[in-house]
Structures are given as C-alpha cells and as structure tokens.
C-alpha cells in the first residue's frame, strides 16, 4: 500500500506523483523501475522511477495517460492509496565517468532520464542532454534537466519551442561538430531509441537504451518481457531494462508491444462506460 503525497500536472496528460514508499526510496538507483497495481482488479504496470528522496521515504513517478490503467491512476488524488507498489526493480544504469555523456529522451522519457543525467553529472561527466517533444505544450522538466546538464538542447517536432526537428537531428549535429561522447543513454518511444541507435552505430559511440516491453511480475518469472539482444533472449525486467542499443531488435519489440491493442481499447471503453462507479478495493495488506 502506498499513499500519494503530492500530485502535479506537468503537461496535458502527463502527471507527477510523489508517493510514500520508504523501502523503495531507500534502495532505488537511477534506471530502475517500480511495478504498481491500483486496486484488486487492476493490472500490474511498470513505471520508471523519476526521482527519490530517501530521507523522506518518497518515490516520484511521472506517467503519460494512454490506456485505461494510466488514466485511472491519473484520477487518483493526493491522500489516496495505490494498493500494490513494488520495487526497485531491474538493474540500475551503469554510471561512471565516461568523459562526455549524452542523454537523449523523448516525451515522457525526459523525467525518466533525469535521475540518470543527474548521476552522470555527479560522477564527473560533461553531460549533454537532448530532450524532444511533439510541441511546446508538452515540454516538461526543462529546468530540472538544465540544472544537471552542461548543455541542454530542447527540440519540438513542430518547431513551436526550442529547435524544430527530432532528437536525432540534434544528436547528428553534435556528432558532426566533433563531439566524442563516451556513452549515449536513450529513453523514450521505441522508434526514437531505434533511431538514436542508428545515429550512433555509424559513429561507433556506445549507446544504451532503456526498454519498455509489456511486463507482469517483473521478477523474471513469466517471460513476457523477453527481448532479443545480440541474437539472445533477455528478460528486460531482470536482465535489463537497459541494453546495448546496437544489439537490440527494436522491430521485434515494436511488434510485441502491439499484442493487446484490441484488448487495451476494449478495457478503456469498458472503463469509460462504467465511469463514476467506485471500485476502490483494499483488503490485502502490502509493504512499501
């Protein structure tokens, strides 16, 4: 059981929660995630940990409302509780001094890459961050990202803010101007991570991507999160979520993310039809 301490709207459809989860807060490292289940009938969904304040027992999550579960989550208010909150899960990001490190994030990937960028900065890296959004209204975490980066580039697809274009355009320019990053971190939509990997492959820049397949248990038990990396099967929840982006089969991941599209649509419709009826449940005592 985990109580929502604070709720904020970062941009349309993007919400930030501070949660009371001392066990998770104490152990979480950049790059790790949590799994949550809102109530007795809920599904288990993974969300990247966007920040922690271990001294207060606080864990921050930021999420984009897409399907039924994230919308329902978004309707919860400060003071309410999430039934199950499990973490930290997955292997932490590999943080060391790479010289120059580039953090590339798209959309809601920005809050997710923030703790990584901060840790890289603390480890002595020169941090260049590229954060991309569809348009100005969706720009989030700019100030925070600026505070942990030596250089911050904001892009929008429609040019309504920052530089017009995709994050990969900015990344290509960096590489063209002679930057030699020791490591590139990519977090965001699969297609974006795939394109980042293509950019850096030619330049031979080591790149990691944080994969976001469907998960259930996230303890390595069910195998739904399997991804092909370097021709081998890996479980993103326990072997990842970060992998060598040049080895990842992104097309397979894109296909596998589509498996429940019809059911996701149906779940959303079902929920919207029955909206207003409260189904809060909460009998199983949990930890965290």
């Amino acid at each position, binding site marked *: 059981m985990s109580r929502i301490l604070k709720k904020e709207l970062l941009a349309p459809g993007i919400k930030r929660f501070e949660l009371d989860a001392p066990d998770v807060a104490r152990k979480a490292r950049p790059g790790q995630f949590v799994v949550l289940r809102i109530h007795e009938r809920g599904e288990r969904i993974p969300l990247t940990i966007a920040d922690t304040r271990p001294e207060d027992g606080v864990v921050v999550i930021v999420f984009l409302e897409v399907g039924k579960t994230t919308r329902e989550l978004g309707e919860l208010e400060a003071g309410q509780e999430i039934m199950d909150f499990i973490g930290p899960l997955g292997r932490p990001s590999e943080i060391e001094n790479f010289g120059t490190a580039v953090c590339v994030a798209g959309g809601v990937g920005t809050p997710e890459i923030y703790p990584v960028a901060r840790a890289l900065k603390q480890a002595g890296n020169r941090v260049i961050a590229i954060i991309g959004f569809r348009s100005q209204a969706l720009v989030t975490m700019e100030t925070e990202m600026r505070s942990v980066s030596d250089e911050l580039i904001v892009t929008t697809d429609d040019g309504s803010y920052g530089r017009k274009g995709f994050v990969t355009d900015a990344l290509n320019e960096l590489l063209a101007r002679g930057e030699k990053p020791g490591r590139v971190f990519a977090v965001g939509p699969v297609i974006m991570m795939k394109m980042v990997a293509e950019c850096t492959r030619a330049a031979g820049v080591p790149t990691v991507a944080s994969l976001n397949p469907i998960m259930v248990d996230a303890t*390595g*038990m*069910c*195998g*739904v999160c399997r991804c092909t990396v370097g021709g081998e099967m890996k479980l993103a929840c326990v072997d990842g979520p970060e992998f060598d982006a040049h080895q990842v089969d992104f097309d397979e991941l894109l296909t*596998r993310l589509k498996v429940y599209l019809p059911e996701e649509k149906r*779940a959303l419709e079902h929920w919207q039809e029955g909206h207003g009826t409260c189904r809060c449940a909460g009998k199983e005592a949990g930890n965290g």
Partner: protein
Amino acid sequence: MAKPAPTRTPMREQDPGVRARNFDEVPHGYSPEEAAAEAQRCLRCKKPTCVNGCPVEVDIPGFIGAIAEGRLWDAMTVMKRTNVLPAICGRVCPQETQCEGECVLAKKMEPVAIGNLERFIADWEAEQNECVMCEKLPPTGRKVAVIGAGPAGLTVAGDCLKFGHEVTVFEALHAPGGVLVYGIPEFRLPKSIVEREVNFIRDTGAKLVTNFVVGMTRTIAELLEDFDAVFVGTGAGRPWFMELPGENALGIYSANEYLTRSNLMKAYLFPEYDTPIVRGKRVATIGGGNVAMDSARTALRLGAEESIIVYRRSRQEMPAREAEIHHAEQEGIRFEFLTNPVRYVANKQGWVEALECLRMELGEPDASGRRRPVPVKGSEFRIPVDTVVVAIGNSPNPLIPQTTPGLEVSKRGTIVVDPATGRTSKKGVFAGGDIVTGAATVILAMGAGRIAANSIDEYLKTGNWQDPTGSQ
C-alpha cells in the same frame, strides 16, 4: 475386520462437457458418509507402508481411523501435527506414486483414497466455525525471515511459529501462495482454499509482507541484520523456452505467463479485471507435465475450439499426475504424442499461425530410464494454431543467488544445501523447495521446509553452524 471393497468410493465431479467451459473446481469432494465408507477400507496395518510414501510422514492410519470412527476433530488434530496444508495436498499431491502407491491394498485392488480423505477432512474443518490451532511453544524471542510464500516457505513459517520463534514472510508478488496462486488453476485448486490455509498461518502469528522482492527491496545480508535466520524458498520461477525460430511471435506464451494472467490476475474475467489474455481458438501446449495439463485445460475454459497437447514422448512417459491426464482426456484435449516442434510460423502481422513439428519414435532408454524419442526423418508437418503455450519447465529464480555473495549455487542455478539440514554455504541461511531441487512437487517443497525448520530451530537454540559444503 470386513474385507475391503475392491474399488474406492468415487468422488462426484462436474460433468466433463460442462466443466470444460467454466473455472469451477472439477471434483465436488466426499460427504461424511462417503468419507466414512472409504476410511473403512483401510486395514490399519501394524506397519503402515503408506506413511513411508509420504514425504512429510502424515500419520495416515491415525487420521483415517479417526474418520472411520466419526471422530473428525481428532482426525484433523492428527493431520495438523505433520501437515499444515492438507486441503492443498489432498488436491495436488501425486498420491499414486506416494502414499497410495505404497498402500498394501494397491497390490490386489484399488488403494485407499488417501488424498480424497485428506481433502475431505480439511474441507470439513473449514465448514466448522472453529479450527484446530497449532500448539505453540513459549516465545523464544528469535526472529526468522522466510523468503517466498510458496509451500516451502509457508511450511517453514508454520513450523517455526510452533517452535515459538517470530516469523516474517517476504513475498515478491502481491499475493502469498507461490505456484498455488499464480500457477495451479482455480478449477483444480480454488484460490479461496489457498487463502484459507495462508490465513491459518497468519492467524498462528506469521507476519506476511507482500510486494517485497528480496535481493531488490532488501538483500539477504540486510535481512540478517534484523533476523537470526533466513529461509530461502523462492521456487523455480524462470521459464524455459524451446529456443526455436519464431518463438517471440505474438500469441506465444510461457506457461508461467499464461497461467499467471489467468489465475493470479484473473484475466479470464477481463474486462471486469484489467489484465488481458489472448483467447485463442486453436491452442497448442508444448509439454507433458501438470503445468501442460493445466495450460491446455485453461485454454479450453478461455474458449478454445481445439486445445492440443504436443508431447515428444508417449502417454506412458508423461510426468503429469494420472488424475490430471485423465481429466484432460475427458474434457476433449487432443494429444499429439511423439511429436516435437521445430519452429513457429508467423503471419505478416507477427502472430503465430502454425507450429511446425516432427514425428518421433522411441529409441534406447536414456539416463532417466525413459526411452529416448528420436525424430523420424522427413516427417515434418504443421499444426495450425493461433496461440501456443510453452510448458517445458522452469529453472530456479536467479535473483537471490545473484544478490547474495557467498551463497553457493550449482551449475543448474539451484542453491546448494546439505539435504539433511537445509543449510546453505552462508551462515544463518537455509533453503528448500524448488529453488534447491528444481521444479518438483508441493509436498517435496513442504518436506524440505519441515527439515529446514527443524534445523533452524536447532541453530537458534545452539548457535552451532557447520558449513555443510566445506567452503565459506
């Protein structure tokens, strides 16, 4: 004593045609009269061989004798001395190779239906408004952490409580029970029964902490700062795949995923419950164990028109319990024996559309004594499918070994213990169940829990720790 009837008292069941489409439990259980009739078949042997067949040595003639005489509370008291999960064991133990296989009647006729009687007495108790509590020794003030709330962990918890120790059980999932809740389906082991047995252990005094992944949320080394002993019962949780081309196509599940979605997450009630599952029309399940039977029967209940089991040996070699194979056959599961998949064929959208297989024939016996299947050249054929469930086994969950320096593991990834005590190579840490043996049975996990609990008690009393593996 009168001569026993040659056949056992049958247990009433749901009709196969009806039950194949619902998730309700298949057998209905005995009435007290049926139970008494069956109990009277027991000869009350002076040297009961059945007890040797039971990994936790339930006093079988003792509890059956009490049922025969109508002393049902006594029967339950006898049972709980050795087995705290009788409603579960009575339903899922492979009795035909254990207690019932050793019953003297088995030589000439049907053995006493020990499992059915065990189930009866546990269910009878549940219908009363009170229950037999375990006798507890005075509190010792010592603290035991149990990792994993499966049968092994729950047994350790129950036993350590009886010894007077304080027990906290840490479970990674949101519900306790291990395979009993996420793996074995409702129609074979109703979740309310698991809940009841878990509640019994909670009422005896165990603290149950769910949503706590040891190794991630806290390591064993950290637990040892707060607890005097730790028991690892984390099970065999990592699914094997066939490692064939096309295995990541849409519609291909591990049995763990398929069953977890359906059982733990209640996907069969989607969209009332949020977790989806593919409701395939033509489902192939690869494997021949209990897990395969459970998957294929779940597929039927999710609406499959055809549910097919693909197994590379013949019926005789199938490791599943006889009762499960029989139930599967009755429900109309199609068996493709001596058949081995070689690849998956996917359509343009990435969905599996066929399982390509080879026919096999039985050759020389292998190390396990079973005749080894060898492929018949040129026998490739395709089974059209829209869903495949891979149920060929699991390896131990690596999370704890990976995060616990000094804990010795075998090449197979199982935790190495001294079988007589359950001690690992790390001081104060014990282990048992599937994490030690690889995927096995509920009762073996409970037996291992019993052994570990006894030696935990001894360790807490004496403080003696001898490293069974000779390394430190």
